[in-house]
Each structure stands twice: as structure tokens, then as C-alpha cells.
């Protein structure tokens, strides 16, 4: 009778070389980055009073300010809807071009994906700062920013959806000699439409959140008022703006979550 051998552990496994090395590397990086950023824990606690004072002033919201910010809040939602729509509409052709099951030209696909990756690297506020310089202060800059921002995000989500579709109906149409456009219209579109709408709503949620701060750099919406109240050290107004933004975000999230549940 053979005795099953006890599994042996190598030297590296026994002394947890990998784990210790990773931990050491993390510690070195932590120390280096805290040096570089000048972190001073003591300072935070010695100045904690000021921070607390700010919070206390924020905890007395100036409710009468609500009337002033209703209009800019609505403008923010309008910016988000329009920006997301433009971005999603632009994203559809790019998503089709970068889906590996529809486009077999590897070079074209790689080029499109590289372009989308590049677009996605740019943070929203950075885009806003540039478009405010181009279009001037106002909601146009915000809409363009959100359009480009959501274009990058939606196109990736869309082509991942396209890549997961069932190819059977495509083959069926191809075998009866349908054209590319016919195939997309009758075989691809019905399979992906619900997911597209779902991702569109998801992007809209993110854009509503993003659009509330875009105005900080002059790109319209509630952010303009946020910046004004912060500059005037009027923190009771800031609190109202943040609370109102929170309410709007929660309502939009609720609507979009409900719609997505109905769709999927």
C-alpha cells in the first residue's frame, strides 16, 4: 500500500517570499508617497477644529436658498441628458467598429480601440476646463464635456455587449445572403437594444453626478453656484447645494434603477 505523499512546499512558499516582498514593496511605496505629499498626521488633528467649524457651519443649511438653485439644478439635469445622448449616439458606430465578432479587420479594430482608450484617459473636469476655454463660460461647454466623457465610457460598455451576443441569428441571415446593414438591423440590434438602454441610463446617473461639479470651472449648472458659495465662504448655502444635489442624484438613480430592472 502506497502512502500518499505529503505535498511539499518549495523554499519560496515556505518562507512566504512573495507575500513578504509585496508587503515590503507596499511599505516602501507608502513611505515614499507620504514623504512626497508631505503628509503630517499631527497637523490634521491640530487643525481639526477648523475642519469641524466648517462642518458645523454646513450643518445649518440656509433653506431659503433652495428657490435660487432649482433652476440651475434643472439645467444640470438637462446638460446631463443632452450630453449623454450625444455621447451615446456617437459611441454606437465606434462600438460596432471595435467589436471583434463583427469587424474582422484587426488593424481597424485596434486603431478604434486605441482611440477610445485615449478618450477615456481624460478626466471630466480636465475636459471641462479646456472646453470652457474654447466655448466660453456656460452650459455649452458642459454639454460638450459630458458628451465626450460619456462617449468614451459608453463605447466600451457597448462593444463589450456586442461581443457577447448570440451569433446564431447572424449566421442564419448571412446564409440567406443578407447585407451587413440588414444583419445589424435584424440580428444584432434586437439582441443588444435593452442592454444599450440600460447602460445609457447607467451613464446618465454618472453624468448627473459629474455635471454637478463641472460648473465649478464655469461649465454651467449647479456647480457655478457651488463655486460662488464656496468663494464667499457661505457654507450654509454650500450645504443646501450639496443636499439638493444629493436629492437629485438619488431621484435620478431611483428612476434609472427602476427602468433598468424593467428592461432587463
Amino acid at each position, binding site marked *: 500500500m502506497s502512502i500518499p505523499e505529503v505535498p511539499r512546499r518549495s523554499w519560496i512558499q515556505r518562507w512566504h517570499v512573495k507575500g513578504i516582498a509585496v508587503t515590503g514593496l507596499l511599505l516602501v511605496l507608502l513611505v515614499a508617497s507620504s514623504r512626497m*505629499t*508631505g503628509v503630517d498626521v499631527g497637523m490634521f488633528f491640530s487643525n481639526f477644529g477648523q475642519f469641524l467649524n466648517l462642518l458645523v457651519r454646513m450643518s445649518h443649511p440656509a433653506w431659503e436658498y433652495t428657490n435660487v438653485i432649482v433652476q440651475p439644478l434643472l439645467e444640470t439635469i438637462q446638460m446631463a441628458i443632452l450630453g449623454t445622448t450625444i455621447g451615446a449616439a456617437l459611441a454606437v458606430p465606434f462600438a460596432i467598429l471595435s467589436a471583434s465578432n463583427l469587424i474582422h479587420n484587426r488593424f481597424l479594430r485596434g486603431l478604434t480601440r486605441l482611440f477610445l482608450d485615449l478618450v477615456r484617459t481624460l*478626466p471630466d473636469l480636465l475636459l471641462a476646463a479646456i472646453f470652457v476655454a474654447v466655448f466660453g463660460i456656460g452650459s455649452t461647454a458642459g454639454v460638450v464635456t459630458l458628451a465626450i466623457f460619456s462617449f468614451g465610457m459608453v463605447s466600451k460598455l457597448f462593444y463589450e455587449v456586442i461581443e457577447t451576443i448570440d451569433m446564431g441569428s447572424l449566421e442564419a441571415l448571412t446564409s440567406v445572403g443578407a447585407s451587413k446593414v440588414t444583419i445589424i438591423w435584424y440580428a444584432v440590434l434586437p439582441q443588444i437594444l435593452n442592454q444599450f438602454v440600460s447602460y445609457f441610463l447607467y451613464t446618465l446617473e454618472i453624468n448627473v453626478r459629474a455635471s454637478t461639479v463641472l460648473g465649478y470651472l464655469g461649465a454651467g449648472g449647479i456647480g457655478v453656484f457651488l463655486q460662488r458659495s464656496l468663494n464667499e465662504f457661505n457654507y450654509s448655502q454650500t450645504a443646501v447645494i450639496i443636499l439638493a444635489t444629493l436629492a437629485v442624484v438619488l431621484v435620478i438613480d431611483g428612476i434609472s434603477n427602476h427602468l433598468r430592472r424593467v428592461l432587463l
Partner: protein
Amino acid sequence: MITTLIEKPSRSIWQRWRWLLWVVVIGALYDWTISGLKFTGLQESAGVVSRSIMAGLVHPQWSYVYDGSGEDLVSLILQTLAIAFLGTIVSAVISVPFAFWAARGDHERFFVRSGSGKVVLTLIRTFPEIVLAIMFIKAVGPGSYAGVLAVSIHSIGMLGKLFSEAIENMNRGPEEAIVSAGGRSGQVFGLATLPTIMPEFFSYTLYRFEIAVRSASILGMVGAGGIGTPMIFAIQTRNWPKVGIILLGIVIMVLLIDSLSEQLRKRLI
């Protein structure tokens, strides 16, 4: 031969014409959207400005890349990465208790504990990071320290949510095994819960680091350190060659970090 026809399922009027309702609702929504926005007041110089931006992007100011002053592109990009790294690590540590607070338990009644945790996490998530940065600047002065604090607090909202979902969906087998072998609750946590959940926590932390890099690069726009500060100055002074080189730096940094983190995450799970 079977000749009976299968009857077509009849649809009520509501089902048949429901799409029309959606068309009307969506049409009204877009009508409201477009009517509310004012597209007037476009700068006449938009064309000129965008042309000079393009020119600046094509001819970046290469001398800014490194000049040893500590205010050049490379040092500031490193500083941005340091802000993101430190903020993410701190928030990952703080997020763990929040996650256990917000994770729905099996024997919980009415979900009071987990529900309250979820509400707190939503509140943190919705609080704008920029405002947080401005508040911390008031507390610790302008600079990257404020950025670190803003990133570490803001990230709790998302990391706590992802962590708590990981806890809710985790495999309970190892925990039960330790319990049935007579382990105490501390042993269950240390020997079963943590090892099971750790890879997912690491993976989410890496993912959050990618996002933190992006936000650390814009926090400087309000004075919280990193590459954002010279960026906003360059945009305000219309110094497009400098904007070009900074944009290039940010794009390369984000691409590198994203691919690195993706590789690591693939290995983790």
C-alpha cells in the same frame, strides 16, 4: 396532415400602443432638455482657440518635461501618483469596517445595521470630491496633503460598497468549516473570512486606484496638489504648448497605470 392553426396571441390595446406612450414621454423630455439650455453666448473666438489648442498639442513644450526644479512634469506626475496611492491605501483600510457594517447579514432583522451602513456609504459617495478637497484645504492648507485626505475619504463611499457586496456574495464554506471544527469567532474571521475575501478586496482596491489617479490629476485645479495646478494655470494663461505637454503626460500616466493594474488584477482572480 395537421391543419389546425396556432392562434396568434391577442394583445390588448394597451400592449399594442404602449410604445406610443414612450415616444411621447421621451419626446417631451428631450423637448424640455433642449429648450432649457441656452446655446447662445458662444465665444466668437472658439475656432481660433481650438486651432491654437491643436497647435499646442502638436507642438508641446518639451522643456517642461524635466528641469530638476521639482515643479516639472515628471515630479508633479509622480506627486499625483503618490496622492492617488496613499489615498487609496488609507481608504481601503478604513473601508473594511464600513464594509462589514453595510454588508447584509443572514440573521439580520429588518436590515437596520446594513441599511444604515449603505445610506452612510451613499452619502459619502455623493459628496463631491472637489468640495471635500476644498474643505481639507481649509484644514491643512493647500498642497498635496489635502488631496490625499480628499481621495481617502471620498474613496470610502465606493470601496465600502464594493467590499460589502463582496462580503455578501462570498463563499461561506470555509467559515462553516472552521465553526464546525470548534473555532472561535476571532479564528473564523482570521482563518476563513479574511483569506476568502482578500483577493477580491485587493482587486477592487486596484480598480479604485485607477479612478483615484484620474481624480488626483484634477484635484490640483482647486489647489490640492498634483499635476492639476499647473494645468489650470496653463489653461487660464492660454499657454497651449504647456497644456499640450501636460495632457500628454496625463494620458501616458493613465494608460500605463490602467494596463499595469489590469495585469495585476488578472493575476489576482
